[in-house]
Structure formats: C-alpha cells, structure tokens
C-alpha cells in the first residue's frame, strides 16, 4: 500500500516537473534565441548606462580613484548653476538647429534635382556623397589647412577677391558659422540620399493625377510629396539631430571650443570635464543632462514633423 502510494507520488512529481518544463519552454522558449543578444545588450549598453548614472552621483576624479565620495545631486546642482553649461546648451542648439535645417532643405532640393534622370546623374550622385564617407576627423583636418589664415587655399582666394585674410576659426563672429558650413558640406549628402530614396518610393500615379488636376509642381511638392515622404524625412531628421548634438571631431581638429567659448558645445564640455579635468562624476552628470536634452528635443521635433504632416 505504502509502496503504491509512493509510486503514485513519485509519478506525479515526475509529471509535474515535466509539465513545468513544458510550460516554461512554451512560455519562454521563443526568448532563448534572443538570450545572447539580450546579454550583449545588458553588458554593452544597459550596464554602462546605469553605471554612468550611478557615478554621476559621486564626486570622483579619475586621477585619484580612492577618493570617490557620494555627492547625491551635487554634480547636477553645480552644472545647472554654471554659466558655461548654459552657454554650451545655447551653442549646441544654434549648431544643431541651423545645420540640420539647412541640410534638410538642401538635401531635399538636391534630391528633387536628381529625381529626374539626366546624363551623368549616376556619376554626379557618387561625387555628391563623397563628403559623407570621409571621417569627420579628416574633414576637420582638411578644413583646418584649407581655411588656415596664413597659408590656406581659401585665404588665397579671399585675398585674390579683395576680401583680405579671413580668420574663419579665430574670429568669434565666424567660428561657429564656419563649423556649421563644414557640417552642412559633410552631411547634406546623407539627407540627399534618404530624400532621393523616399522620392523614388512615391507612387507616380498620385503625381500624375495631381498634374491632370492642374496642380503646379510647387503645390504637388507641398500637398502630396512631402506628405508621402514624411516618415523617411522624420527618420533622417532624427538621425541627423542625434548626430549633430554629438559633434566633437570637427571641433577637436579646428577650434577646440574656441575662440573664447563660441564653439564650446555640450559634447566638447563633457570631453573637457572628463578627459582634461578627469572629473568623471561631473562629466557623467553632464552626459545625463545632455541625454535628456537630446531625447526631449528629438521627440518634440518628431512629434512636430509627423503631426504637422499628418494634419495636412
């Protein structure tokens, strides 16, 4: 009797364990193939992100790791009351707003030009995208030499045209504008490529129908085409916004945040705090504030773009 009871108990135990595995496999089996990816994400992205949040709450200079002290919101408080932080916010917004807006407009304009086939268009298209494939640090170096006020080729041209020597990187009124022009030169091709791909996806019958209705090209562009390509435009703008906020390489190679503080962007300030001052807690707090600024800005811009287009 007792034997049969124990057999039944053992059998039900085996069955319930088997059922448990079945249930687990059914419920979570699909996630198993994703596990390596998730693990990678946790190690490479989530952990560093959380770690940076933690160290942003510490007063910690990298030159002396033994003197790491918890400071709570100390770093954030210092930053938010620091005029140089707010200057960097303004400089960054000027750079991002002007550069990305002009890249969008120019990219779309060039894409509309290339939307129609013409002799040599493939070759020209390849030439047009060249700046985009050059490393930003190389672009910075080239710009530094080309615009050098002593021996740069641009200086030669401005002198020949009677404008004299222009110190593009040294004049406070010109430096940020010069960086914006360099960024536009390099990244307009990116906008152009996305816009061209988007335009090529627009159904031709819609455009033909609009033409039959007597719509002029400008009206077709604003009433139909822009609406149809709103998602690719939004993606392109979002990518460029994120990238423009992080601008660093060109500044490193040219102005190094100067003259004075006119090209001191958020990412440059973070570099200064983290790698010049080695104030890693302060730099982490700076990075978090920058992240918040970027996320909020990109979200608002996307919402604006998509709502604006959807309401048409």
């Amino acid at each position, binding site marked *: 009797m007792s034997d049969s009871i124990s057999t039944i108990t053992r059998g039900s135990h085996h069955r319930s364990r088997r059922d448990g595995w079945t249930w687990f496999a059914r419920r979570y089996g699909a996630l198993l193939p994703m596990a390596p990816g998730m693990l990678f994400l946790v190690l490479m992205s989530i952990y560093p992100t959380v770690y940076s949040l933690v160290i942003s709450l510490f007063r910690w200079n990298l030159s*002396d790791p*033994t003197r790491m002290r918890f400071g709570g919101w100390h770093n954030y408080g210092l930053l938010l009351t620091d005029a140089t932080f707010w200057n960097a916010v303004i400089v960054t917004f000027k750079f991002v707003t002007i550069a990305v807006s002009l890249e969008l407009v120019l990219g779309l304009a060039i894409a509309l030009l290339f939307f129609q086939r013409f002799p040599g268009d493939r070759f020209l298209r390849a030439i047009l995208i060249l700046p985009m494939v050059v490393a930003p640090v190389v672009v910075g170096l080239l710009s530094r030499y080309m615009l050098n006020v002593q021996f740069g080729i641009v200086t030669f041209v401005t002198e020949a045209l009677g404008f004299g020597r222009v110190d593009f990187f040294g004049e406070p009124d010109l430096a940020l504008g010069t960086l914006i022009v360099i960024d536009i030169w390099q990244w307009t091709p990116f906008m152009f490529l996305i816009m061209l791909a988007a335009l090529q996806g627009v159904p031709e019958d819609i455009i033909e129908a609009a033409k039959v209705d007597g719509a002029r090209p400008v009206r077709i562009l604003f009433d139909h085409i822009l609406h149809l390509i709103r998602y690719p435009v939004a993606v392109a703008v979002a990518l460029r916004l994120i990238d423009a906020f992080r601008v660093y390489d060109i500044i490193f190679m040219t102005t190094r945040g100067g*003259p004075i503080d006119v090209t001191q962007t958020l990412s440059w300030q973070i570099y200064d705090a983290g790698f010049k001052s080695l104030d890693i807690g302060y730099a982490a707090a700076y990075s978090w504030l920058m992240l918040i600024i970027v996320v909020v800005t990109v979200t608002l811009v996307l919402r604006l773009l998509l709502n604006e287009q959807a309401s048409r």
Partner: protein
Amino acid sequence: MLVGAAAALALPGISMAQDQVTLQAIFLPATWGVVVRDVFAPQYEKETGVKVEVQLVGRDAIHEKMATLFAAQDPSFDIFNLDYSWIPEFGAGGHLLPLDDLLSEDDKADFFKTALDVGSWNGTLYGLPQTIHPHVLWYRADLYADPDVMAAYKAKTGSELAPPTTMAEWLQQVEFFNGTQFEGQTIYGWAAQAAKGFGNVHTWLTFLYGYGGSAFNADFSASTLSTPEAIAATKQWAEMMKYMPPGSSAFTYDDVTTSAQQGTVATALQWSWGAFAVDDPASSKTVGDWQFVEVPAVEAGGQSHPHLASWVISVSKYSKHGDEAKKFTAWLETKANDVVQASLGGGDPVRSSSYANPTLTEAKLEGSDALRFRRYDVVLKAMQNTKPRPFFPGEEAWETVVSGPLQAIQLGEKSVEDGLAESDAAVNRLLAR
C-alpha cells in the same frame, strides 16, 4: 650612480637574465620622443637584451591614456613621458613609482634643481627630467643688424635698435616691426603660442611671473588673478597680442615655429628647445638668423621670470617590470646620454654639466660658423629665474578654465579686469568641485 647603473646593465649576465623583458613606453612625438624610439631604445636592447617598444602619442592623449590606464590599474604600459605639470596629479594619486633611488648625490647636484623639483611631489621624485626648455626671447639678428632697419627705428623712436631688455622696449619694437617689409616679405612684431587650451596660458604665464603676479594663494585654495600685478601683466600681454600675425589667436607651438622658419616675425617668445627647427635648412628660410636673449624684465635692471616647460619620465606603479623600467629611465638620463640626446636634437639637457660639454658647445651648423647650440648661455641664465606652472594636482583643469577668459581678453571681447575676475570666479568654482 646613473652611470654605474648603466654600466651594470651592460654586463653579459644581466643581459642574459633580462632577454625576455619587453617594456612598453609612451613618449611625446617631439624630437626627444623620436630620439628615444629611434636611437636609444634599439641601443638599449643591444646592450641589455631588454626590448623597449616606444609609442609616440600627442600631449593630451598621453594625459587621457594615463588617467584611464591608472584608474583601471592597467599594467599595459611601463614608462610614460609626462609634462611635469601632471606630476602632482598622478603623484598624489599614487600611480607612479618613486625614483629617488636612481639619483646619487652627484646626480642631484648635476640635474637642474628646478627640473628635479617639478619632477617631485611631496618630496618624492616621480619624474626623472628628460628635457627642460624655459621661455627665451628669440630675435632676428639679421634684422636687428640691418643698417636700414636700424636707421628707420632710430628715426621713428629715437632709440638704438638692440635686443629688448625691458617690456616697454619690446613693445616699442614689435610695434615698429609690425607690418614692415624686409627683403620683400611682410614682417610682424612677434609670435607666441596663443591658442585656446594651454597655448595662451603658457605664454601669459611668463608675463604674469615677470610682473610678480601669481595664479594662486600659497595653499592653492583661491585664485589670485585680480591683483594689480596680474592686471598689469595681462594688460602688457594683451597689448602685445596686437602685433602678432593674422590668425594668431589660434597659434600653437607649430605655428610659432613656422612663422620663425619663414621669417615672418621679428621676435618670438618660444621654448628654448624649439630653436633647432629654425636652423634646419630643409624647412627654414632663416638658418642661423635667430639669436636668443632672456625674456625682457618689467623695468631696466630688473629680472624676468620665464615660464618653465619640462618633460619628465615616469614609471607606472602598475608596471610588471617596474625595476627594469626604472633602469631604462636612469640609463636614458646618464651624463653621457643627456649629451647624446641633446646632440641628436632631443631637447635641451637637464644636467648643468652638459651645458659645458664641448660636443654641444662647439658644435656648428653645417656649412656655417654659427654655433648650433648658441642659445645655451641664455638657457642657463633663464634656468636661474624660471618658474613652473601652478604646481598642484588640478593644473591641467586650471589652464583649461583660465584659457577661455584669457582669449576673450586677447581678442578684445572683455576688459582685462573683467576677464581676470571671470577667471578668478571660474577657478574658484573649479576648486569647489
């Protein structure tokens, strides 16, 4: 002692025992780093069997690399070439091996005291000096000796043209030279590092020290840049900046060198060591034309206090071959190698005895009677009164902070008083961090 250590290393037995060791070193890509990589490291391997792999890395990158490696207690690199202003930072952090045992009493007497001082923190030597180069005033001797130029100067100022001994004379001269033509070329008054970052700070410090100013109070707890001395020094510096070539607000060491090589400036405030570049016929139009004097004093008969630049060699505390790394460091700076290093163009010597060595003092420029190291007398004088950068663990951050307001002053965007007050506030804020 350094000679003894070097001799001991040459013994076959030691060589056999050490043939497995490879030291990893980072040096600045200046001539002294190149000489270590191309000449000394291969020679050391031949003599001892110890291989030294030298990477040449830019100044800021060395600082970043050291900070991150040390934070991780990473033993990847054994030896570092340091700007001396990082010694307090990394010495206080406990990341460097003490090097005091490398020096005998003879060595201590032979090395420049100031060079040893800036290699030390809290009385412990963490950086063996490799090169020193105080600011000296460079002037174009051919311009200063040209009868037409001398006559024009006399006519304009009523004074004889001679290398300036006071700040007022120097200002008068750069004003006179600025924009003049000489042998078909436009000449500007002077050149010096002026770029934002550390360049303008390094130049300005020579003015600050000359006028008796100081960047900090005695215990480095407060910035003292609004003193009458600092204001007077900065006014002189800002006035002088008007007589530099176009684009000078971005001038780095290389730009000053290029201006001197191309003969576009009459005077320059530059590191003594950099003189080798103007005597290089492959890149210079002014070979043998530059002469050197001490930086002008504020008043006649007074004494200037030029800002000191110096690079030292340190050994990482996390090195797995600390003793070997120390031996190589000591060997690099023996009496003999200090001279060899200088003769190969690797920076000005760190031992006073080298300045009397005929190998250096009698060396002449190729195809010329001009002495190759004609600056040495002036360097020796400058070393008696030179002053280092503010010597405290936050120096690198400090010069980054003051550089911005100083540039606002040099570009005329802020008054001297406002710019210095802003610097004071920013530095005090940094100290509070």
